[in-house]
């Protein structure tokens, strides 16, 4: 809302500089977002909150200025109607299809007007607010709109068919050429003013070209009405047409203001265009319920705001804002709310008025004293632990959109059994569905970073995914990982690049599960190609996969492998335990013996290790793989391995003679059962 300093002074005496006034208004809830000089006048741009339609007018803002600066408001008294009615006149008939759409309609017939340019002062005032001057009649309606907040409209009376008006819903595909020169196609969601043939204006939004007031106009019909805010909003949205008028009707206009503004306009038209008002037709539909008086307790003001304000001061503040205050008992005030303040309904609303006008800066700062019981939030704690483990392992957290393109799932080969949850009103294809997996977004994120010439992309995300379960949608916390490229190390022999693979995931999961106090996870072949299911005990808790070539192509990734992993954190956390119990350190030293051997590639290493460990009980404590090699020295189809066996007893120091027979057994098991060649 724009307003000029001099226009405000029509209503209230201001003894503050424009800058000081702007500051005061801002701190009373009328935020002045800019202050500029235009044509020698100060123009304030004020942000009006959605609940204060009364402030979309100079008069309304002036009322606030009066309250804030404790100055009296100059007369806001409305003019007395003056109708020179003549019997000879055939009154205009007004018909309202549905009084809910249009609770008030007034039509004043003004004859013998002289349409011409507006006087300088009027033109300048409008232009300073950014409103183009058209002619004296249109300018007067706009002037009243800005002064009182009531949009008025003038029709060329002689262009109305059959001397009648109807306020009704538009018919499907009805057309109207609006004042902005466009032809608009209407629908029953839109309220129009029509004559006996066709629409002549879109109610509350914009008039029609055919009935526009021009230099040739002699007689006009002046409309002042109240339209349902919702229908105006829907019409504005359907037509994509916001005007000063629709802006105000959407927020609500009250009956009294509509009436007063139209009489003011009649008076201006009489003085500036010599028009005579010959009839005033009023059609009142649903009247608003009168606001009940509100009881306000001065002690409650103090209790909530923590500032002492005397009842008498409350009374005068509310009075300046247009409320009628009756003193009840010592503490209680009975307050009548004016029609232009439908936002005030409860005692708390009145307390806000006091706080606003006194100034929030007067309220001290205190700290509450509250006996609180903390809420447990295990999931959050474990998520935080998980994220910290991930960054400790060198992974970087990303945050990607929860809404994705449906095709992206297919592209990655992750179309789910259940259909994903769809968005009713996405702005673009990239917002079609709520993602049921993090993997698609992570793959995209890898592709993006490869485009930025990253050699190594280690990323993770923790977020909710959305599952379309038959019993209703479900959200689930997931951990997603993506790895691509090679990690570089500096070793004695120089720079070494190690391309990532599934063992990286195994290492990451090992660290995570270790910290979570969980048993080792198992990895098994999966139904999805190039992927492994991740199991904790019997339960499948996730999946890791290597993207296939055709997927990489679709993502625009060349010459790189991308590894993805997703875990259900819900399932992981249900198995997690952060409880720890100390296990006594070994009392006696152990003995380690290494075995180097060649093993056929086809033989399961897992099985071999399990068998050896079982065989070596109870003295064999642990087997570790300490070396692994393939290459020129190794016959093809074989791999070279060195394992280290640790023998230890809880009761005594073991001797060579004790462990030798056990170790021999392991060696013969290797050669006999697993066909290994010991080196």
């Amino acid at each position: 809302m724009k307003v000029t300093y001099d226009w405000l002074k029509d209503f209230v005496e201001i003894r503050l500089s424009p800058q000081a006034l702007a500051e005061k208004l801002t701190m009373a809830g009328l935020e002045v977002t800019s202050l500029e000089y235009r044509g020698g006048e100060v123009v304030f741009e004020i942000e009006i909150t959605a609940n204060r339609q009364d402030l979309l007018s100079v008069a309304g803002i002036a009322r606030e200025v009066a309250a804030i600066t404790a100055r009296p408001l100059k007369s806001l008294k409305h003019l007395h109607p003056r109708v020179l009615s003549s019997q000879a006149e055939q009154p205009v008939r007004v018909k309202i299809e549905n009084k809910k759409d249009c609770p008030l309609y007034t039509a004043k017939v003004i004859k013998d007007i002289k349409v011409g340019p507006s006087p300088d002062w009027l033109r300048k005032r409008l232009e300073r607010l950014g409103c183009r001057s058209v002619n004296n009649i249109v300018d007067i309606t706009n002037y009243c709109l800005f002064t009182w907040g009531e949009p008025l409209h003038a029709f060329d009376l002689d262009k109305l068919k059959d001397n009648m008006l109807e306020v009704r819903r538009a018919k499907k595909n009805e057309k109207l050429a609006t004042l902005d020169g466009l032809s608009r196609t209407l629908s029953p969601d839109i309220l129009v003013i029509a004559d006996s043939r066709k629409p002549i204006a879109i109610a509350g939004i914009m008039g029609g070209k055919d009935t526009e007031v021009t230099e040739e106009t002699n007689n006009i019909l002046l409309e002042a009405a109240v339209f349902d805010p919702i229908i105006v909003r829907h019409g504005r949205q359907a037509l994509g047409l916001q005007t000063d008028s629709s802006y105000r009707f959407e927020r609500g206009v009250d009956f009294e203001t509509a009436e007063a503004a139209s009489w003011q306009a009649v008076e201006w038209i009489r003085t500036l265009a010599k028009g005579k008002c010959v009839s005033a037709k009023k059609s009142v539909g649903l009247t608003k319920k009168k606001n009940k008086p509100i009881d306000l307790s001065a002690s409650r003001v103090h209790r909530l705001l923590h500032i002492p304000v005397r009842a008498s001061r409350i009374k005068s503040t509310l009075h300046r804002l247009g409320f009628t205050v009756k003193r009840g008992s010592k503490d209680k005030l009975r307050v009548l709310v004016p029609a232009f303040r439908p936002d005030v309904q409860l005692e708390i609303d009145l307390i806000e008025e006091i706080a606003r006008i006194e100034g929030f800066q007067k309220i001290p700062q205190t700290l509450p004293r509250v006996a609180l019981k903390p809420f447990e939030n295990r999931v959050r704690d474990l998520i935080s632990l998980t994220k910290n483990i991930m960054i400790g392992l060198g992974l970087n957290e990303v945050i990607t959109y929860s809404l994705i393109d449906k095709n992206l799932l297919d592209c990655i080969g992750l179309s789910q059994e259940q259909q994903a949850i769809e968005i009713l009103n996405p702005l673009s294809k990239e917002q079609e569905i709520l993602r049921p997996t993090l993997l698609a977004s992570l793959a995209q994120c890898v592709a993006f970073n490869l485009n930025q010439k990253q050699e190594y992309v280690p990323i993770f995300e923790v977020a909710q995914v959305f599952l379309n379960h038959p019993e209703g949608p479900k959200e689930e916390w997931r951990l997603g990982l993506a790895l691509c490229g090679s990690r570089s190390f500096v070793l004695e022999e120089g720079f070494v690049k190690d391309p990532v693979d599934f063992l990286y995931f195994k290492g990451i999961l090992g660290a995570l599960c270790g910290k979570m106090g969980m048993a080792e996870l198992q990895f098994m072949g999966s139904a999805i190609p190039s992927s492994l299911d991740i199991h904790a005990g019997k339960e499948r808790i996730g999946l890791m996969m290597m993207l296939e070539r055709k997927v990489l192509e679709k993502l625009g990734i060349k010459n790189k492998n991308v590894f993805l992993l997703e875990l259900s954190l819900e399932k992981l956390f249900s198995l997690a335990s952060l409880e720890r119990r100390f296990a006594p350190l070994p009392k006696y030293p152990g003995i380690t013996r290494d075995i180097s051997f060649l093993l056929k590639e086809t033989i399961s290493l897992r099985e071999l290790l399990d068998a050896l460990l079982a065989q070596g009980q109870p003295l064999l404590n642990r087997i570790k793989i300490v070396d692994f090699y393939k290459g020129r020295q190794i016959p093809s189809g074989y791999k070279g391995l060195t394992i280290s066996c640790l023998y230890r007893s809880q009761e005594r120091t073991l001797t060579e003679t004790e462990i030798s027979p056990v170790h021999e057994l392991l060696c013969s098991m290797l050669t006999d059962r697993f066909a290994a060649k010991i080196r």
Partner: protein
Amino acid sequence: MDIESIYSQVEAEIQRVNTPLAWEEFRTKYLGRKGIIAQLTSSISSLPPQERSGFGQQVNALKMKILSLLEAKHRVLSEESEIPQPASCDMAMPGKAQDLGVLHPVTQVVEAICKVFERMGFSVVEGPELETEYNNFTGLNIPLEHPSRDVFDTFYIKSLSADRQACPAGKQAKSQKLLLRSHTSPVQVRVMKSSKPPLAVVVPGRVYRPDAVDASHSFMFHQIEGFMVDTDIRFSDLKGVLELFAKAVFGPQIKMRFRPHFFPFTEPSAEVDISCIICQGKGCSVCGRKGWLEILGSGMIHPNVFKQVGYDPNKYSGFAFGMGVERIAMLKYNINDIRLFFENDLRFLKQF
């Protein structure tokens, strides 16, 4: 070999001892179990009795001499070994350590803010991102026809069962249509419905609004909501708590102001500004020459919200506040484009 020549041999050899290994060899040669001193000592018994005492003293003196030489050399060697050997280790080469990953800047800001409130006794609670229309709007005193319920301002979910026709937002009176929460405030309703005061809770999380994406808008972003309810919570408590928050996050020199505003779920409502952290309130392009930056919305919880959750508004009062995490992060780190948060360029992420 006579003792005198051993003396000169020792003096000469110790000069050549330059490494810990040579030192140890030297020590073993003379003082070891089968070393020269041990041999000399064991030869005493073969001497005539009158020479034994004199020879014994000589051997002892020699041993003391060797010990002192060894000790002196040890000191020299240990000092030397502390000096890095530039030839063997080029410190310009990359260090050998696992690179640390980074938490996303949004996570870092969320954690920092939650920590401030947790220190004041608030608990962190989260809620679902798919919400009912009731929790997102009605429970928060947002009327049925409020513009924020429009499909222009909230993402709705296509009705999941096929028989229910998807219809424009806000038209069904009592539907339990699902939507993507447009703010974290529905968690207020959830917590208040399931717990009794006193309550002090902060709620971080993702929120969604169908805004066209540009440098300052994103259709997904993060909010932190906070609220406190008890029998005697005052507006002054809101001011005190938020003052502590702002100073902890933006620094102790920050000034704050509360401007009256309007939100359906609070009354009175206030927007909170801090003095511009770029220009310290003098006026710059970041604050639009105003000297103030808006950082959050707040107010006293509306009695109608209490009624919705079954609290007696005459008995309880409370405050609530909400802020956009990306906005705070942009101000704190001087980031000029919100899209950077969701592009996840590693060169961006690694700066935090």
